[in-house]
C-alpha cells in the first residue's frame, strides 16, 4: 500500500498525542522563515481568542469555529503551498485565510458582517473567499468543498498550467461520499489535488474511531491507489514538509495525495459548544502539547530568537488583532439596498482566466 506512517528519528510514532516533547530545529532551516511561521501561528492564536471574545460580546453572529490548538497544522499546511496554488477549505478557516495572506482586517470584518470583509459581509465565519489570494472559499457543508477542488484541478489541467489545488477538510468529511467520489475522480483524470485532512480527533462530538471504520484516515486513499501520509499536526515543519511532498507529487506527477495531520482542538466544535463529551484528562493532555508554546521553545533553544523578540512579536500581534477589531467595528454594514446584489452575475463579467 502506498502509505506510510511518519516516524521520528528515534523511531517513535510522530503522531502520538501523549507526550509533550521539545525537539531541536534542523540546522538548515532559515531563521527568518522559522520566525515567520511562529509569527503566523501566534497571529492565528490571538486572532481566534479575539474572535471568541467578540462572539461572546455578540459582535459576531452565526456559528464560529476556531483553529485554536491547530495553529501548527494551519501554518505548516499553508507554508507547503505555492502562492499561486488554489485552496478550498471547510468552515473552520479563519487561520487559513490569514495564512493565505488575507489581511487581518478583512477577516475580522467578515466575522463582523461588514462590507469591508473578504466576502463583503455575505458569507461570515464559514464562507471566506479571496480570488486574489486564491482562497477559493470556506464551505459550510461537510465534504461539499472536496468535489469543487477536484473541478478546479480539472480546470488547471485543462488549461495546461502548473498550479495545484489543495483542499482542507476535517476528519468527519472522510466518512462521506463526496470524499470518495473525489478521490476516484482525481485519480482517474490524474488531477493535481492535495487532500489535506485535519484529524483533530472529533467530528463535532463523535470520536474518529467511532465514526470511521478505519481511524488512520491517510489510509483511506488505498481503494483508489491514492498515496497517503500521516503527520504530527503539532509540528509545523513536519506538516509543511509532508504538504510540500504531496504538492510536488501533484504538480510534477499529476498524482493526487492525502496528507492527514493529527491535531488537537483546544475548544469545543464551535464557540458555543461546552465540550462536555471529551474526557477532562484528555483535554488537559491535549492542551499541554501547545503547538505555539512548543515552537517558541524550539526557537529559543536553537537561539533563533530570545525572550525580548518573543515579547516584541506578542505586542505586534496583539496590536494587529486589536486594530482589526477597530477596523471591523468602524466599517459599515452592507447597505440593505444591496440585498439583491450578486444573486446573478451579469453577462458582461470577464472572468479571470488563470
Amino acid at each position, binding site marked *: 500500500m502506498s502509505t506510510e506512517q511518519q516516524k521520528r528519528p528515534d523511531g517513535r510514532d510522530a503522531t502520538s498525542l501523549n507526550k509533550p516533547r521539545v525537539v531541536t530545529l534542523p540546522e538548515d532551516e532559515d531563521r527568518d522563515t522559522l520566525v515567520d511561521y511562529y509569527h503566523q501561528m501566534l497571529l492565528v492564536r490571538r486572532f481566534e481568542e479575539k474572535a471568541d471574545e467578540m462572539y461572546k460580546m455578540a459582535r459576531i453572529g452565526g456559528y464560529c469555529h476556531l483553529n485554536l490548538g491547530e495553529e501548527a497544522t494551519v501554518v505548516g499546511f499553508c507554508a507547503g503551498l505555492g502562492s499561486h496554488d488554489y485552496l478550498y477549505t471547510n468552515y473552520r478557516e479563519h487561520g487559513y485565510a490569514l495564512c493565505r495572506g488575507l489581511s487581518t482586517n478583512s477577516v475580522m470584518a467578515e466575522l463582523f458582517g461588514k462590507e469591508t470583509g473578504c466576502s463583503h459581509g455575505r458569507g461570515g465565519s464559514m464562507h471566506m473567499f479571496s480570488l486574489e489570494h486564491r482562497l477559493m472559499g470556506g464551505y459550510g457543508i461537510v465534504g461539499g468543498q472536496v468535489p469543487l477542488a477536484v473541478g478546479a484541478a480539472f480546470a488547471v489541467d485543462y488549461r495546461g498550467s502548473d498550479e495545484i489545488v489543495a483542499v482542507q477538510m476535517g476528519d468527519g468529511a472522510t466518512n462521506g461520499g*463526496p470524499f470518495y467520489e473525489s478521490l476516484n475522480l482525481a485519480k482517474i483524470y490524474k488531477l493535481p489535488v492535495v487532500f489535506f485532512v485535519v484529524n483533530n480527533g472529533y467530528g463535532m462530538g463523535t470520536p474518529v474511531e467511532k465514526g470511521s471504520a478505519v481511524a488512520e484516515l491517510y489510509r483511506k486513499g488505498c481503494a483508489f491507489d491514492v498515496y497517503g501520509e500521516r503527520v504530527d499536526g503539532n509540528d509545523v515543519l513536519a506538516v509543511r514538509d509532508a504538504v510540500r511532498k504531496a504538492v510536488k507529487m501533484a504538480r510534477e506527477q499529476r498524482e493526487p495525495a492525502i496528507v492527514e495531520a493529527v491535531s488537537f482542538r483546544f475548544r469545543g466544535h464551535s464557540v458555543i459548544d461546552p465540550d462536555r463529551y471529551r474526557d477532562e484528562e484528555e483535554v488537559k493532555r491535549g492542551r499541554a502539547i501547545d503547538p505555539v508554546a512548543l515552537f517558541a521553545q524550539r526557537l529559543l533553544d536553537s537561539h533563533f530568537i530570545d525572550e525580548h523578540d518573543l515579547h516584541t512579536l506578542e505586542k505586534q500581534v496583539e496590536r494587529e488583532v486589536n486594530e482589526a477589531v477597530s477596523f471591523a467595528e468602524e466599517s459599515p454594514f452592507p447597505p440593505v439596498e444591496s440585498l439583491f446584489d450578486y444573486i446573478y452575475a451579469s453577462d458582461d463579467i470577464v472572468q479571470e482566466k488563470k
Partner: protein
Amino acid sequence: MAEISFRQALNDTLREELHRDGNVFLMGEEIGVFEGSYKITAGLLKEFGPKRVVDVPIAENGFVGMAVGAAMLGLRPVVEIMTFNFIALAMDEILNHAAKIYYMFGGQTPVPLVIRTPGGGGQQLSATHSQNLEAWFAHIPGLQVVAPSTPEDAKGMLKMAIRNNNPVIFIEHLGLYNTKGEVPAEDYTIPFGKAKVTKEGTDLTVISYSRMATVALDVARRMEQEHQWHVEVVDIRSLRPLDRETIVNSVKKTGRAIVFEEDWRSYGIGAEIAATVQEEAFDYLDAPIKRVANVEVPLPYAKPLELAALTGAKQLVDAINELAPRRRRIITHV
C-alpha cells in the same frame, strides 16, 4: 429555415458552442464513446476529442461538484445528467454550492455552468425514472431554470445557457426528442424570462412549458376547429426567471386560466403561477384558476396505472370544458 428534430437542435448547438469557445466542454455519463443515452451528444467525441467531451463515472455528486469547481475557474462546463431523477444525488452541489457561490462570496466568482437533463414519464420506466422535479430548482434563488418545448427554442435557449454567467438547469423531455420544428440557420440566442404566446385566443388561457406546452397547443387548435373556442396558449419556457407580465396580461384578456404541468400538483409550478395570477389579476378572473397536473403517486410501471397517473390532452380538454363553457352553456339553455 430547416426542419430538424429537438435532438438534432441540441446536438447542433453543442457542436457550435464547442467550436465557438474553447472554455466550453461537455461532461456526463456515457456521453462520449456511447454517444449519450439519448444520443444528444452523438458524434461529438469523435469531432472534439476526450478533452472537450468527458465521460464521467457514475458519481453525480462528485462530477457535478467538479463541474462547479471548474466553472469557478472560468471554464464553461455543460453537464448531462442522464435523466432528471439522478440529479437528486447532486443536490448539495447544486443547491449549496452552484447557486450560492456568487452570492455568498460577495460577487467574486460567477459559476457559468449548464446542467442539461431530460424529465418525463410515459415510457413505463416507473417510479425512479419518470419524474419531473423542476419545482425543486425553480424554488432556488441563484439558479436559472428553463424548459423549452420546440427545437427552435431549445437551440436559442441552450446557447443562452452556455453563454450566460450563471448556473442554468436546462430541462429537456424524453417525449420531445423526436419532435420536429423549424430552426433558423443563423446564430441566435433566446433570452430567459420571456414567455411566448404560441396561440392567441380570447376565451381562456392555458399556461404551460416543456412537452405539455406542445400538447396544449394541439388541444387549443383542435378546440378552435371543433368548437370555436378561442384558447390562448402561453409557453412560459423559462421557470426562473418567470415572465409574470405575459401570463398576467393574457389572463387579464381572457379572464380564465389553466396551468397545465407534468409535475405533481401540490407545491408545483402551477401553484406559483396560480398565486401570481390571483395577486396581479384577481379582479379580471371570471372563474377559479385550474391546475392540470400529474396524479400524486410515484409513477407505476403497469401501463393502465401509468396512463391513469399521467396528465395529458384528455385531462386538459376536460378542464377546459369545465371552465370555459359555463357562459356558453347558459346561453345554450336559454
